């Protein structure tokens, strides 16, 4: 069964305090890993797709990396507006273009 586990469940940072979020997965034959940002009361917003181990993607203060077993979302010098829940997902093994999502990491950045 496909499994996506995100840690920590919640993370509180001071503004400017860099950290990383983790997404570990157990799927056979990874066909991509996706990161999303979700603000309270809104739909998830697509951030990145990573396809192969060693790949990195960046957007402003966010950098996503991928290994054969996990992905990290590094947040450099975060600002309060980076506060959100970050979700990762992988294609399900069912082969029907569906995704399996982790439960997310709730990030709170205090000024």
């Amino acid at each position, binding site marked *: 069964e496909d499994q996506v586990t995100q840690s920590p469940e919640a993370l509180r940072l001071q503004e400017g305090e860099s950290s990383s979020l983790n997404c570990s997965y157990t799927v056979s034959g990874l066909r991509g890993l996706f990161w*999303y940002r979700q603000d309270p009361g809104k*739909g*998830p917003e*697509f951030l990145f797709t990573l396809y192969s181990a060693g790949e990195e993607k960046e957007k402003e203060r966010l950098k996503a990396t991928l290994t054969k077993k996990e992905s990290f979302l590094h947040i450099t010098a975060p600002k309060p507006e980076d506060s959100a829940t970050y979700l990762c*997902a992988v294609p399900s093994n069912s082969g029907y*273009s569906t*995704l399996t999502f*982790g439960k997310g990491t709730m990030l709170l950045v205090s000024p």
Partner: protein
Amino acid sequence: SQTIHQWPATLVQPVGSPLSLECTVEGTSNPNLYWYRQAAGRGLQLLFYSVGIGQISSEVPQNLSASRPQDRQFILSSKKLLLSDSGFYLCAWGAVLAGGGEQFFGPGTRLTVL
């Protein structure tokens, strides 16, 4: 560019009443369409997905149903709502790719069943 719309944004319904949530996508053709539910403090639960008009696959047996009457329209329905149907309902679309790909979400509908 592609956009996805959902309505209504919020809904309060009594137990036993019917439900109809609508989702439309603009700027793409023949998308895969998805309905998810997100309960408080829980992850995204896939309810239904569709790879074409009239083609619906159900992931979770329940009192909800879905229909796709047009290429870019996806409807979530219920004949009689339960308290447990409360939650945040999200529609998403994805390009038709073998093995899965990015999905893009709408703004969501907050449903409260009283």
